[in-house]
């Protein structure tokens, strides 16, 4: 059961570097400081079609990410998609007539919720519902629209 000081030292270094690597991965490589841990408030929006939007998809305004999608549910009565979002508490001056659209980053990128401010002087707070929404653009619908409108012209 002899173990010299060198051995202990090397083992300590090994374990430390291993844990260090885990930290590196957690901090540098991922989004550990995740939005859900910061203070945030919840708002909801209803969409006819939420397309490829996923939980944890980003929510942005003016190109800045201010929150994330926290849940997506289906409304049995209105047959609409209910998207819940968490917005960082520091962004608490969003007018309550803000509109939400589902947009695509780049040409084939992931989908996100883009918020455009309205002009109201009252602000969104925890539990608010966004009234103005624009659904995701579904490529097939777009193409068929184009085809049919073309037909009509003839």
């Amino acid at each position, binding site marked *: 059961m002899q173990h010299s000081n060198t*051995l202990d030292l*090397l083992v300590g270094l090994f*374990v430390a*570097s*291993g844990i260090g690597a885990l930290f*590196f*991965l957690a901090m540098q*490589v*991922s989004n550990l400081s995740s939005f859900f841990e910061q203070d945030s408030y919840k708002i909801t929006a209803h969409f006819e079609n939420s397309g490829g939007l996923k939980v944890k998809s980003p929510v942005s305004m003016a190109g800045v990410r201010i929150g994330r999608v926290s849940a997506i549910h289906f409304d049995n009565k209105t047959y609409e998609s209910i998207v819940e979002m968490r917005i960082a508490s520091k962004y608490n001056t969003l007018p309550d007539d803000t509109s939400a659209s589902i947009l695509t980053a780049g040409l084939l990128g992931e989908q996100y919720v883009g918020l455009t401010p309205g002009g109201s002087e009252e602000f969104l707070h925890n539990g608010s519902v966004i009234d103005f929404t624009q659904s995701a653009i579904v490529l097939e619908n777009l193409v068929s629209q184009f085809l049919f409108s073309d037909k009509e012209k003839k």
Partner: protein
Amino acid sequence: MQIFQQLGHATLNSLSKLGRGTFFLMHSLNGLTYILIRPGLIIRQLYFVGVLTFLIIIVSGLFVGMVLALQGYYTLSDFGAEESLGIMVAASLVRELGPVVSALLYAGRAGSALTAEIGLMKATEQLSGMEMMAVDPVKRIIAPRFYAGLISMPLLAALFSMIGIIGGHIVGVGLLGVDDGAFWSHMQSSMDFYDDILNGVIKSIVFGFITTWIALFEGYDTLPTSEGVGRATTRTVVNSAFAILGLDFLLTAIMFGDD
């Protein structure tokens, strides 16, 4: 007809081996209380199992990361998506290559060494001798090695992934001209701690558990001859490889299949 007989025979043998192996595992896990009072045993084994595998992990990780960046760049540039190189390298490493490749390397280096060591101890009657001295060889010899392997594996996998990402950075940003900021920012925004990193760690813990178990049991169960030990080390590496790859498929399907 003889082939069916042999098949049946082989299956029965495998099943009884699995049974013996499970009892062996339970017995080893029981050794936790014994080794907690003797931390020197684990530290010594951490050295043999972890520190000595360190070098091959670092070197392999570096090269794997660099190759990923190289290969990935050319494919991504077809879509004008070079800026995603960072996330591509990181995701491949953290989710799959880190845990799997480091586990395979671990099985080849540390696993076979463990099997040989235990097999040799069995052949030279050291295990028997210990029993006759009223010391439980499973608790004293096997358990420290088992827990050392369990601790080392996730650390080694994390090291592999980290060095791989750095290697990918060197090639991608340094040599191929991908933008440094984009490399990291795409990675950070798309890589999720819980889904990607934690899952990778869970995978490596599972691999460490299975590989170390196989390595120790093959050594313990071997015929105490030089031929037997040799065959046991081969079986360790082969069976570990099967187990790692099979479990990887299973775990990937469970963890990453729900999106």
